[in-house]
C-alpha cells in the first residue's frame, strides 16, 4: 500500500502527512493531522458535520480524497478562535444556545463564517440557505439562525 505525501496549509499553518490510498480528507485531518474539529456523521455528503473550506469554498471533507488537497489551503472550525479569543460566531452560538450535543457545530460554524466573510449582512433567508447543507438533530435550527444573525447585525459579544 503506497502512502502519498500531502502538503497543505491548514488554518494558516503549513502541514504535511501521508495519506492512505482512498483515504478521505475527513479521516486524514482527524487521524494523520490530529484536527478533530470536523466530525464524521454519514460519510455520504448528507449531514455536513465534516464541512471544511478548501481554497475558500465550503466542501464536504468526507467526499474529498485527501491526496487531492496537496498544495491547497484548508480551514476548519479549530482555526476560528485566536488563542483564548473566540470568533464572534462561537460566542454567539454559546449566548443563543445554538449548540446542544455540539456534533453539528464545527460544520455549522465553518458554513456560517464563510457566509459572513462574503456577505456580512445576510438576510434570514440567506442564512437558512447557507446552512442548508448542515443537519442539526438537536436545536431545531432557530437558535443557530438567531446566533448567526446576531453576529451579522453586530449585536454579538465581541
Amino acid at each position, binding site marked *: 500500500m503506497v502512502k502519498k505525501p500531502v502538503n497543505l496549509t491548514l488554518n494558516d499553518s503549513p502541514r504535511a502527512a501521508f495519506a492512505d*490510498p482512498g483515504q478521505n480528507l475527513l479521516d486524514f485531518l482527524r487521524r494523520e493531522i490530529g484536527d478533530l474539529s470536523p466530525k464524521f456523521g454519514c460519510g*455520504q*455528503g448528507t449531514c455536513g458535520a465534516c*464541512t471544511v473550506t478548501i481554497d475558500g*469554498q465550503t466542501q464536504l471533507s*468526507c*467526499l474529498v*480524497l485527501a491526496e487531492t488537497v496537496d498544495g491547497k489551503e484548508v480551514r476548519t472550525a479549530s482555526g476560528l478562535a485566536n488563542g483564548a479569543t473566540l470568533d464572534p460566531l462561537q460566542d454567539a452560538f454559546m449566548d443563543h444556545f445554538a449548540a446542544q450535543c455540539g456534533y453539528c457545530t464545527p460544520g455549522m460554524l465553518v*458554513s456560517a463564517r464563510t457566509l459572513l466573510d462574503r456577505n456580512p449582512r445576510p438576510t434570514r433567508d440567506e442564512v437558512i*440557505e447557507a446552512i442548508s447543507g448542515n443537519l442539526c438533530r438537536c436545536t431545531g435550527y432557530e437558535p443557530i439562525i438567531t446566533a448567526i444573525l446576531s453576529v451579522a447585525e453586530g449585536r454579538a459579544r465581541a
Partner: protein
Amino acid sequence: MTTLETYPTMEDAARAMGADATFLGGGTVVMRAVNEGVATPRLIRVTDPGLAHISTVGEILRLGASVTMADVLAHRDLAFLHPVARQIGGPQVRNMATVAGNLFAEHPYGDFATALLALGAQVTVTGQGGARSVDEVLRDRDRAGLVSAVEIPRPRDVRSFGFRKVSRVKPKGVSVLCIAAYLPRESGRIRGARVAFGAMGPTPLRSSGAERALEGQMLDTATAEGAAAAATEGLSPATDQIATEWYRREVAGVHLKRLLTEMERG
C-alpha cells in the same frame, strides 16, 4: 483498496480508462462508493484547468466538464440556468458537483442533465470527433466515454426555458421529479418543443406526449392541459424511498401544467 491516478489531459485519462477504473469528477457520487469500500480499484482524474472554463462562442455556451454548480451560479450569461443549479444539493455540494458528473449521476439525481436535455445541448466526448446529443449520451451512459464539455445553444428568448423541481425537503432535497421545458416560439406558436423529466426513469427522459401536445400550439390553458394529460408518455418512473411509481405518474402532469402556466405568464 482504491488508488488515484492523475493525468494532465482528458486524452491521457481516456487511454488509461478500463473496466477497473472510474473517472473522478467532483466526487460527490464516486466518493460515497470509496467510503463504503465498493469503488473500483482505480480512480482517474484530470488536472487540466481548461476543463473548468465557461466560454461563449457565438450563440453557443460551452461549459467544461469540471464546471461546478457554484460556477454556473457565478456566471451572468448562465442566468437562465441559475434556478436549476441553485436547487442542486446544499452549498457544499454545489461547490463540488460538476456538470459532467450530473450527466452520469444515478436516479433520482440528474437535475442539471434534465435541463441540458430540454435545451438540446451537445456533449463533447474525448476521442470522438464532433459532438453528440445529450439524448444519445444518456441513452447509453455506461459506454459514453469521457466528457470534456457540454455545449448549450443559447435560447433566443430566455423566457422560452422553464424549470421546476419537486422535492419534499426545502431548501435542500432530491427530486420527486423535475421538469425542464424549452418552448421556442415563432409568431406565437411553439416550434421545436422539448420537455424533459428528471427522476421519472433511469435517466432524464423526454416526454414525447407533452412535446406532441405542445408542438405548433399557442401556449395557453387548453394547450397546457393537453400536455399535462399526455405528460407520462415516454417516461418510466420507479418506486424508491422518495415516492412510488404511482405517485410520480399521478403528479407529473399536475406539475407540468403549473410550470407551463408560469411560463405562459412569462
